[in-house]
């Protein structure tokens, strides 16, 4: 379980995350939604110790993220931020192999090789394995990063906008993959999402943020609801039941 207590982060005068407390149960896919600037990414970054918090605490299965040694935590929790600019020329296989670094410390074992091959084929990267990252399209590169995180094989996997740069086919297969990781491998997946319909159709739990605080949380049935969503996004949003899925429309 990820336990977030009274988390605060401020830059200069603007408070980005304002006293957020939240429990994310182990197992399942949890998404964090909300308008731009609601504090979703900052929250995720603090939980994954990429950004230092001003106040509050985060524990992952009882391990405090600020005091637990980095290499211990790296075997429990992995994170992928959005907009990753890597200037080093690495092949896809090398990048994915670095996901094993917390275990192998640079001396990969047979077990590591199995994880690497597994992650590559999971993300359909077999043919691209020996290509350099700078020769790939944005979507292919995004899949390579996700494969690296998958290869890290942690109980908790955090993603900030993992669908960036992905076309419909790869976006859907990415979400199916995350759900499979949760169902079949017992992983806990936390994703920041822009598209509420994706959150509605693929997630077990939804956390909605607005203005640095948590506005609502619950199952998709509870959160994907006209008044709650219209209030959070400040536009009229209608919810339709189509083929057993809750789909929102807000274009007209």
């Amino acid at each position, binding site marked *: 379980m990820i336990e977030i207590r009274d988390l605060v982060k401020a830059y200069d005068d603007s408070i980005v995350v304002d006293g957020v407390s939240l429990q994310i149960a182990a197992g399942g896919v949890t998404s964090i939604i909300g308008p731009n600037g609601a504090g979703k990414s900052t929250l995720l970054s603090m939980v*994954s*110790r*990429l950004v230092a918090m001003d106040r509050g605490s985060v524990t992952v299965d009882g391990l405090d993220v600020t005091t637990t*040694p*980095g*290499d*211990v*935590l*790296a*075997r429990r929790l*992995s*994170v*992928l*931020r959005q907009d*990753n*600019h*890597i*200037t*080093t*020329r*690495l*092949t896809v296989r*090398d990048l994915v192999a*670095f*996901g094993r*670094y*917390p275990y192998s*410390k*640079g001396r990969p074992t047979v077990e590591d090789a199995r994880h690497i091959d597994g992650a590559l084929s999971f993300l359909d990267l077999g043919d691209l394995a020996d290509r*350099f990252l700078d020769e790939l399209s944005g979507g292919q590169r995004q899949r390579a990063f996700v494969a690296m*995180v998958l290869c*890290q094989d942690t109980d908790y996997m955090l993603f900030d906008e993992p669908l960036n740069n992905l076309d419909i086919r790869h976006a859907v297969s990415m979400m199916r993959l995350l759900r499979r990781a949760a169902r079949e491998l017992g992983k806990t997946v936390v994703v920041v999402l822009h598209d509420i319909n994706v959150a509605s159709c693929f997630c077990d739990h939804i956390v909605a943020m607005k203005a640095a605080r948590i506005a609502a949380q619950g199952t998709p049935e509870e959160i994907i609801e006209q008044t709650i969503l219209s209030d959070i996004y400040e536009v009229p949003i209608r919810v339709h039941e189509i083929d057993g899925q809750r789909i929102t429309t807000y274009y007209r």
Partner: protein
Amino acid sequence: MSRFLPAILMIALLALVSLFVGVSDVSLAALANGDGHAQLVLIASRIPRTFALILSGAALAVAGTIMQMLARNRFVEPSTAGTVESASLGILFVMLFAPAMPVIGKMLVATAFALAGTALFLRILRQVPLRSPLLVPLIGIMLGSVIGAVTTFIAYRYDLQQSLAAWMTGDFSGILKGRYELLWLNLALTIAAYVAADRFTVAGMGQDFTTNLGLNYRRVVSLGLVIVSMVTAVVVATVGAIPFLGLVVPNVVSMIMGDNIRRSLPWIALTGAGLVLMCDIVGRLVIRPYEIPIGTVFGVVGSIFFLYLLLRSRSRVA
């Protein structure tokens, strides 16, 4: 690995040529006949010079690679990051305040200065919003010029400009037995860099990736800075700066085989050693019986390549 053996043979061949090229006639026949002069030149000058070339070439190329990973920029190396200028300012300080200090102390002071200068460079990079990767070496060259100007002013005041010129222009002609042994430290530093190779590759992916993989980013950067500063200080104190070497070699190797440093570092070290050997031999031959210092030869080769890299990346970005 199969291509590794020919590469080592190539270096060995260049080293052999280096042993037998020079003003004094050192030939196999002379040595076999027990020519005392030839033996003396070989042992006191040619062998130390050849080792010095290999040790500085390999270490400088490796230092350049580490700098590029830490700054996450292709165009950075000790001579475009203020490191060389800081090291020579350090040596100048020793000459002024403790001229009797042994060479190892001189090197340590130079290392401390180089460390401070390079850390300052990385700090500036963090503060300045970088809109273009080309700004990074520009900032480094500017910082180096400022430090260089201070150094030149002090040297001018105390009549030490000739010594300063010696540190700023790499020249192996003065290398003699007993005056280059400090360079063996570079071997240890190169090996240390190889041991930590994966850390530097990870650091090259940025702070977030490094943290995610359980490494302490600051610690990796500090380790890298110490290696880079020490290599630079040792080379500046013994043979003088060889600009652009740490830029040309890592970039060429990266183009061919990528940036997984565990794999590429042996090639970077070998290419660095080979290139320096070659340029030094050329410098010895062009205006025989005189010599062109390697700093000058490589300055020409390196700056042309640097321009090529800049232009290539511009056409790619644009």
